[in-house]
């Protein structure tokens, strides 16, 4: 039998320590405001069994995915355009700074006022919050594109598709990955706010309901399950994809 890695053992120990401190604190407080881990687990199990958890998690994940794709595509296109053209960059950089500093809550409120409490308005509000950060990262990536490989593409008569897939995208990959990870982390938090303010499904909506009756166990049950899902996406999708994309890099920088 293979022994579990020290990393995994450390992770389990860390979780156990956290649960123990939480349990102790809950026992000492003895309050509905700080339920014990087991109380939260009971709620989690109940919500999972009656189907609510899957329904609301699914709704939120769907919104995260849709908003992420829209923001990523638009942000990447804007970023690359600004990174390749000095003129566009000079013209639009102040806009970027403005939108970067616009609080998410303001965008959400404005979009709901302008377009009504609709799914489209919710997704657009989330995407609008994320577009500038993706654009800034990809602008750096586009600026860092190495001219010598474009000459290689030219003398080897690459088609436009070859140029994109074999010259441009591999160079943008670290920036695309950085934008994806920070994007996911940011978007799921904003989606909860959007749901809280104007949707009737999703984790944000559920937390809003629990908040109105001061049901902390319910709030924590949904929060924890969503954190688990997002971590799963990070570990099972994003990190393996990045490792795959970085195979060619020399070993020292792989660590």
């Amino acid at each position, binding site marked *: 039998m293979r022994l579990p890695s020290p990393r995994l053992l450390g992770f389990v120990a860390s979780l156990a320590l956290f649960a123990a401190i939480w349990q102790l604190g809950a026992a000492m407080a003895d309050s509905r405001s700080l339920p014990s881990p087991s109380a939260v687990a009971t709620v989690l199990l109940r919500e999972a069994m009656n189907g609510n958890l899957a329904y609301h998690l699914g709704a939120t994940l769907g919104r995260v995915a849709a908003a992420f794709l829209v923001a990523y595509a638009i942000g990447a296109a804007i970023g690359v355009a600004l990174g390749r053209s000095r003129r566009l960059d000079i013209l639009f950089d102040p806009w970027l700074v403005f939108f970067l500093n616009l609080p998410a809550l303001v965008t959400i409120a404005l979009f709901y006022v302008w377009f009504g409490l609709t799914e489209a308005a919710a997704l657009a509000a989330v995407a609008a919050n994320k577009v500038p950060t993706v654009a800034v990262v990809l602008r750096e990536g586009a600026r860092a594109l190495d001219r*010598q*490989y474009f*000459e*290689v593409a*030219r*003398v*080897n*008569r*690459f088609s436009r598709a*070859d140029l994109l897939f*074999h*010259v441009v995208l*591999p*160079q943008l*990959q670290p920036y695309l990955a950085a934008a994806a990870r920070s994007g996911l982390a940011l978007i799921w938090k904003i989606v909860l706010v959007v749901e809280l303010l104007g949707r009737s499904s999703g984790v944000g909506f559920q937390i809003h309901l629990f908040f109105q009756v001061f049901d902390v166990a319910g709030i924590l049950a949904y929060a924890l399950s969503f954190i688990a899902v997002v971590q799963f996406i990070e570990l099972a999708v994003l990190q393996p994809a990045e490792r795959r994309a970085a*195979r*060619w*890099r*020399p070993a020292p920088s792989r660590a």
Partner: protein
Amino acid sequence: MPRAGGPPRLALEIRSKRFEGREVLHGLRLEVAAGEAVALIGPSGSGKTTALTIAAGLDEDFEGSVTLGPGVRLAYVFQAPRLLPWRSVRDNVALALPRAQRRGPTADRLLAEVGLEGCAGQYPGELSGGMQRRAALARAFALDADILLLDEAFVSLDGSAAALLRSRLAAHLDERGRSLLLVTHDLDEALELADRIVLLGGTPARDLADLPVPGARSARPPDFGERFRRDHAEILARAGLHAK
């Protein structure tokens, strides 16, 4: 040695080329005929690479003209190998092939031609500098171009590897009647591969001489290099290429 007549495959005329106001080239004319190998030779900093990038159409900021014969295609081997580091060695070669041949055995055959049989699946970063140069040459072979432009392609190879690669290159050119425009600072290399040697020198650099190399590439007597140096000693010295 196929030394065909007719219009040149490549005619290059650089009246003037400047970098940030400083003139680096002032007057260079050269022509490369079908099947002909021309070496452009001069001391370092004489604008050889610049002339080659202009010939390849990579630099259009100059006074003069580049004329290609009808349908003539170029391949270019850069001074640094410039393999795509994120693609395997095989893919680097395959990407220069026509789409239909990319998945076939051609890339592996070309890699074998330069002695890189075992390295097809590796990434360029895993190869030595000399092996990367060989892969870059295989990539240029993959284009199957009418003229091969070579910028100091044998630098940093050890003597025997360079000699082997030169003979592979000569065979590749002879087999298909391809032309070669070779930039080098090494007169021996030029004498081994070229039919004509264009000397570049002075500041700003210009063409000082266009010297034919007697005889066919594959059938030159062993002492002919010495004779060539003796016959052209004065002009070679003026180009900064002193006899060994």
